[in-house]
């Protein structure tokens, strides 16, 4: 833990406002970082890349309908679409002075500009809207940087990733940094990148957010999972997005 703290101190010093931004150090160096789809079978990748056979498009299609519905529709403001927007999330919201993810931004839009209520996390409507917005950045590189405002979120997200938890006493890093590419029973361990989410998972036979996936990760090591949409998960999502920066956004991805 002491070594970890030292590591974050170093990152903190490197990202002070006076110095130019440099990428934080991650256990997997940038040139070795690969998308989760590299660990899937060619058939699954083909299904993901086929705009018709990818079941995630059921949600994208519903999201497109929701986007143009109502008197104060999303489309009323975002006439030219939202290409590339999802690659910059989670991002700092100056109004609330907090870090928000794409789901949070959609809900902020609803309450601030549309006079609507926030949608519950993981509801079909919020998932569909998120999928529709994320899909418009499909194939673009994720581009999230640590700024002075998001430094503390990055650190707490990183700490969550590095901390052993649960009855199995495992940290995310032990599988996804130290042992990726190896077999865990029938599965190849991925690097744990977030670039496919929201995604369709075969295990769920359903479409779900990154937070639902994180909830499953925590349950998998028999730890007490956090609430979907909680600040802990948003911080972790931010850490993962910085870690996955440069990888193509694949949402709606298909994962095992």
């Amino acid at each position, binding site marked *: 833990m002491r070594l970890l703290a030292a590591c974050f101190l170093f990152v903190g010093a490197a990202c002070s406002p006076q110095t130019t931004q440099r990428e934080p150090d991650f256990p997997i160096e940038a040139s070795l970082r690969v998308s989760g789809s590299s660990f899937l079978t060619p058939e699954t990748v083909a299904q993901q890349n086929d705009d018709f056979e990818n079941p995630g498009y*059921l949600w994208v299609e519903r999201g497109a309908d929701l986007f143009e519905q109502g008197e104060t529709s999303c489309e009323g403001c975002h006439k030219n679409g939202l290409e590339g927007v999802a690659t910059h999330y989670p991002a700092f919201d100056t109004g609330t002075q907090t870090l928000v993810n794409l789901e949070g931004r959609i809900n902020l839009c609803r309450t601030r500009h549309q006079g609507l209520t926030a949608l519950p996390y993981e509801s079909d409507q919020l998932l569909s809207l998120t999928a529709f917005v994320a899909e418009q950045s499909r194939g673009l590189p994720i581009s999230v940087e640590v700024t002075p405002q998001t430094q503390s979120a990055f650190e707490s997200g990183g700490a969550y990733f590095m901390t052993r938890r649960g009855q199995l006493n495992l940290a995310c890093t032990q599988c996804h940094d130290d042992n990726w590419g190896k077999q865990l029973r029938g599965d190849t361990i991925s690097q744990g990148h977030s670039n496919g989410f929201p995604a369709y998972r075969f295990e769920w036979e359903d479409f779900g957010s990154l937070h639902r996936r994180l909830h499953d990760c925590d349950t998998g090591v028999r730890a007490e999972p956090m609430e979907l949409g909680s600040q802990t998960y948003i911080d972790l999502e931010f850490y993962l997005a910085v870690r996955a920066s440069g990888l193509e956004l694949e949402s709606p991805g298909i994962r095992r």
Partner: protein
Amino acid sequence: MTTIRLSVPETADRGEIIELRAMIQHEMESGFRFGSRGEMIPQDIITKFECFYNGTLVFSSDFHPGVAANPILKFYARANESGSFEFVWTDQNGQSWSDSAQIEVS
């Protein structure tokens, strides 16, 4: 609301063999699973799929509990005349969903 996605070519040459694809959002609950309190989750599946080409049945399929959620079907038909393809899914209780797509044959 159930979302249906269809893939039918808009145009085809007479006699051409065309690929048709259809996907429907459905949980296809097998009836073999148990919930978190140990209660059995009741079966809820689509049992029949039919495709009509200008009213004539050209393809049908029976679904069983082993079929995955959000089933997708890919099959072929010979384009003989302009008209519509109608896709119909029927579940175990007789409820059905349908959608259609037009094709121009020249």
